């Protein structure tokens, strides 16, 4: 198995004359946490979409643990261990918290889903569901309809759904966006806890959170990777400060 979890080679996504991503090549090592930052329109979410398989119209190639997945559809990528959360929460809003996690547990246990009422199968899912309720702090809300939860709790639920199949690679798109101030610290702790042992690509506009969570920062601007380095290094990088923080280059 390759030490590289995800690798993109010369990836370009064009919308007409505009390149949302322009010739991006980067390797993401196994077990590291990467922070993806850059101004709006830098191409961060597009890159995540390319890696997760939501954006298949691109040039260049994608490899996952050494295997070429350029033409692999999203659901197959999920089975290779890629989990994805979204900028705008994607949960099963009309179902209970329990059923949300139950569906996620189903795909972990079997690719075939029974057409009949299957108590033994459901019992096999129960352990995983309880563990995830515990981890995300949603145990007391298990019977609530997911759409009625506060936004912070919906984000926690989405993280729980994403984590359920035990992905080796986590693509998290602004997991703190819209989360109330009082929930940021606990959400950051949760992300930190679940990142252990996984390759994580994290997009986040909360600078304190992303700098404390990430081991390596990838800075994008206008569809290109303009800098890569440890958080401290990036903080002091003159180019980054100029394009991202809008400061004059000295």
């Amino acid at each position, binding site marked *: 198995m390759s030490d590289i979890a995800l690798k993109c080679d010369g990836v370009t996504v064009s919308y007409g004359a505009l390149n949302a991503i322009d010739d991006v090549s980067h390797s993401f090592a196994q077990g590291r946490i990467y922070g993806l930052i850059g101004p709006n329109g830098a191409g961060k979410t597009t890159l995540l979409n390319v890696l*997760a398989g*939501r954006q298949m119209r691109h040039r260049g190639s994608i490899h996952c643990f050494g295997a070429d997945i350029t033409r692999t559809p*999203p*659901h*197959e990528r*999920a*089975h290779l261990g890629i*989990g*994805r959360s*979204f900028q705008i929460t*994607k*949960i*099963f*809003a*009309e*179902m209970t918290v329990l*059923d949300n996690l*139950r*569906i*996620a547990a*189903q*795909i972990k246990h079997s*690719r075939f*889903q*029974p*057409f*009949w*009422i*299957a108590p033994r*199968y*459901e019992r096999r899912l129960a352990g995983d569901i309880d563990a995830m309720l515990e981890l995300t702090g949603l145990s007391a809300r298990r019977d609530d309809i997911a759409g009625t939860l506060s936004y912070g709790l919906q984000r926690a639920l989405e993280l729980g*759904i*994403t984590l*359920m*199949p035990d992905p080796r690679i986590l693509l998290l798109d602004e997991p703190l966006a819209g989360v109330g101030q009082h929930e940021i610290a606990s959400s950051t702790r949760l992300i930190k806890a679940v990142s252990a042992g996984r390759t994580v690509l994290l997009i986040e506009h909360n600078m304190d959170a992303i700098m404390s969570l990430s081991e390596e920062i990838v800075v994008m601007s206008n569809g290109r990777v303009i800098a890569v380095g440890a958080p401290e290094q990036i903080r002091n990088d003159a180019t980054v400060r100029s394009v991202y923080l809008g400061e004059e280059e000295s």
Partner: protein
Amino acid sequence: MNASRFDLWLGLPLAAIALLLPFTGPSDFMLNLATLVMIWAVFAIGFDFVFGLLGMVSFGHASFLGLGGYALALATQMWGLPFCAGVSLAIVAGALCAWLFSFFALRVSGIFFALVTLALSQLLYILADSKLRAWTGGADGLPGVARPGLGGIDFFDSTLFYWYVLAVFALVMAAVVVLRRSPFGRVIAGIRQNETRAEQLGFDVHRYKQITFIVSGGISGLAGALLASLLMYVNPQMLHWTTSGDVIIMTLLGGAGTLWGPVIGVLAFEVLKEWLSGWTQYWYGILGLIFILATLFFPKGIVGELQERYGQWRDKAARRDGRIS
């Protein structure tokens, strides 16, 4: 939990009425109407698999119904197969047709899905009406479709045929309850609520939709066979798009996505149709007006609306009892 208890409360009186009806000395007309309602209900339930559970408007379900009817007619008349084999063939024909449609229709979604299914089913209708006249009897149709033959029971008797259809209807209802509550059913509900999430979790959304479409086609094929058997006649009108339109109206009227919605919708539609057509030849117009008013005032359909009221009532009762703070 709420929904399943509601389904039970609604289902029990319906079951009681269905079981007691033959003992109340009904006329043949009444029995035939009840049988027709159950057959159309089977069709609407099958249709609602795609419409209510997946949230996709199919305008091509007439094809599966019509093919089911023709499959039974041809199997029993042309190939001399027994009734049961004919019905099985009807289910297979409906499912197979849905499978073929799915290759074209599932490439698109929303209004385009409706249009592709409409175009495909109209193609089949035109073929049945003209080019395949040797098989379908053209506009004249095929008369003399068989009734079931089971241990010497005379199913040409309206009451006995009613029991036969009731048994099939009950089986279909039971199968639907099981499927909706199964892990597979949960995934289908998930796909309707958030397709992207389901796909990103690793579910092959296209395959799930295809399977649901095929099951829906199979159930519709079964309904087609029963309808042909009831009328002892099948013609291309069963394949016409207006048949697809009727089943959409019935399902919406009753409440798409609910267990009893399609059944209540068919019941309301057929009873209104019988009643209104006795009064005026413009019954379809009045029915249309009722449908428009219903969608304006009960957008969730009769059962959908009742289910919501029931949920609110239970919540209020629970709060009053202090079970929920």
